[in-house]
């Protein structure tokens, strides 16, 4: 009895809600129609593969249905964690991402700080414009350049080394040189474009600050450290946090382009391993499981790092 009354009391309200909903849908049907293709596309091509990733928990063969699949639990994950290459893959992946954080990340900041001090506006503009150029060169082209220019017999770099009496180095086939080449080329390709955000933050700093500092006798280096750097610090923190969220997902395509049988012991990373077992060897379930492992960790990293960012700098991704 009580329940019925409660339901009776609830019903008109919820019916009113539904009617309201219908009304807003009818009123804004055009907006909803516009967004529909995007939603359908996203459902099929972004959420579809998430459903497809269930094969990570199955022994999937091409043509199998996922619904009635041959479930295997955590078989592939266990197989990955106990794989003889597992430690090497983790080490290589972390090595590249940490090297990237330490050596690639600061370069655009230093570049922006120094460029800000260049007084000749023509030179400044020229240097900045040229610094973007590598961003517009494709990854394949950059890796092709490395292959050609670092070639031990015909590449210009080794020719220059020879002039100074150094013997040719087979950079691309050496485990020792793989990481330096990777990191240096990464700096080369990204520093100018990444600096945009810092340069524009610097352009917002009032000139009077520098003037009064220089009247007080502060050297230009001191001005950089006390005025310029603090003013871009919030941007630096945000970029750093975003960078941390990519810990396990660095350099998939680049590694695929640079790895070969000679450098593979340091080049091979988790994502290229997943590609190899999944796409090349056709073990779809295994490859998907490895990818899923990375995707989950990356997703967690973003959430954790965003939480920290909310605490520390009151900036959040959402």
């Amino acid at each position, binding site marked *: 009895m009580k329940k019925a009354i409660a339901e009776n009391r609830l019903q008109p309200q919820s019916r009113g809600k539904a009617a309201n909903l219908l009304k807003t849908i009818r009123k804004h049907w055009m907006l909803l129609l*516009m967004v529909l293709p995007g939603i359908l596309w996203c459902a099929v*091509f972004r959420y579809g593969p998430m459903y*497809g990733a269930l094969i990570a928990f199955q022994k999937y063969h091409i043509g199998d249905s996922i619904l009635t699949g041959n479930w295997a639990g955590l078989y592939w994950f266990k197989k990955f964690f106990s794989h003889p290459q597992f430690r090497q893959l983790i080490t290589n992946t972390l090595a590249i991402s940490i090297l990237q954080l330490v050596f690639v990340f600061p370069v655009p900041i230093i570049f922006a700080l120094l460029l800000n001090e*260049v007084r000749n506006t023509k030179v400044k503009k020229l240097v900045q414009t040229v610094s973007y150029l590598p961003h*517009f060169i494709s990854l394949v082209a950059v890796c092709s350049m490395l292959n050609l220019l670092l070639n031990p017999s015909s590449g210009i770099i080794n020719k220059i080394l020879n002039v100074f009496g150094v013997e040719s180095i087979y950079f691309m086939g050496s485990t020792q040189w793989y990481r330096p080449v990777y990191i240096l080329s990464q700096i080369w390709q990204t520093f100018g474009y990444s600096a945009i955000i810092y340069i524009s933050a610097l352009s917002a700093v009032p000139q009077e600050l520098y003037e009064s500092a220089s009247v007080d006798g502060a050297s230009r280096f001191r001005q950089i450290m006390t005025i310029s750097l603090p003013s871009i610090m919030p941007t630096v923190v945000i970029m750093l946090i975003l960078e941390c969220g990519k810990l396990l997902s660095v350099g998939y395509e680049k590694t695929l382009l640079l790895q070969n049988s000679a450098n593979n012991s340091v080049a091979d990373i988790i994502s290229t391993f997943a590609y190899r077992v999944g796409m090349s060897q056709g073990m779809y379930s295994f490859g998907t499981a490895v990818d899923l492992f990375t995707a989950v960790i990356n997703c967690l990293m973003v959430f954790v790092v965003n939480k920290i960012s909310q605490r520390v700098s009151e900036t959040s991704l*959402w």
Partner: protein
Amino acid sequence: MMKDRSLSSKVFDFLLFAMCAVVLVSIIAPVLNIFAVSFSSYDAFARGDVSFWPVEFSLDAYKAIIHDGKVLQGLKYSVLYTALGTLINVILTILTAYPLSRPEMPFRKTISMFFAFTMFFSGGTIPTFLLVQKLGLYNTIWAMVIPNAMQVYNMIIMRTFFQSIPFELTEAARLDGANDFKILWDVILPLSKASIATIALFYAVMHWNSWFQASIYFSSSDKAPLQLVLRNMVINAETLVKSGEASNIGSTSINYATLFISMLPMMALYPFIQKYFVKGVMVGSVKG
């Protein structure tokens, strides 16, 4: 005291000059070297005479490329994928971003979350590949444009652009009896030409530079875009050449020429389009 300061200032200026020089040389020199080798004779290159300017100017490498046809075909397909892909991208991005920029849009928050989530989590390469196969897109040109019909990040940038348009403008049109499609077409789009150009360029560069999709969605290389042709020629071929073993100088010259062709369109365009990129980066940084 004064003297000392001006001395340290001079040292500082010299350091700045050095930095500018390092940046310019490290970026221009490699490109110049590729240009030089590709336009030099095979002999001059084999002798090791070529550094930063063509020696014994020759078009042999380019003639060989035209004769072979593979690179030109790649170029053709790259243009096709870039044009078709960008067109689809821009239409879908605008259609999605505009409603989500409107405060009166029903379920706006939910739909935004629906899109945003995919930026942080994805099913991965292999399930996407299996899906493309299942939908019958494998080995068709549609595999190059449909799975990437939109980048959520670019859609959010577009939405931010749209949100910056004063509300009064659209309200005035609405009072005149214009519907949402008409407002988008007559009010929003004419005001957003620069922003649309920015987004279109983001997409165009993405398509032009992409090679990975082509490498997994085509079983043969007859529809390969230029970047994939380049990869197959330079990277796969070069890694076959072991250390010390001299590669065929003619084919290496052709590789330099192919590389130069693949870089040329973007290098020629970028000084004119870079300001749009700068703008896009700025908007993207304001709020994700």
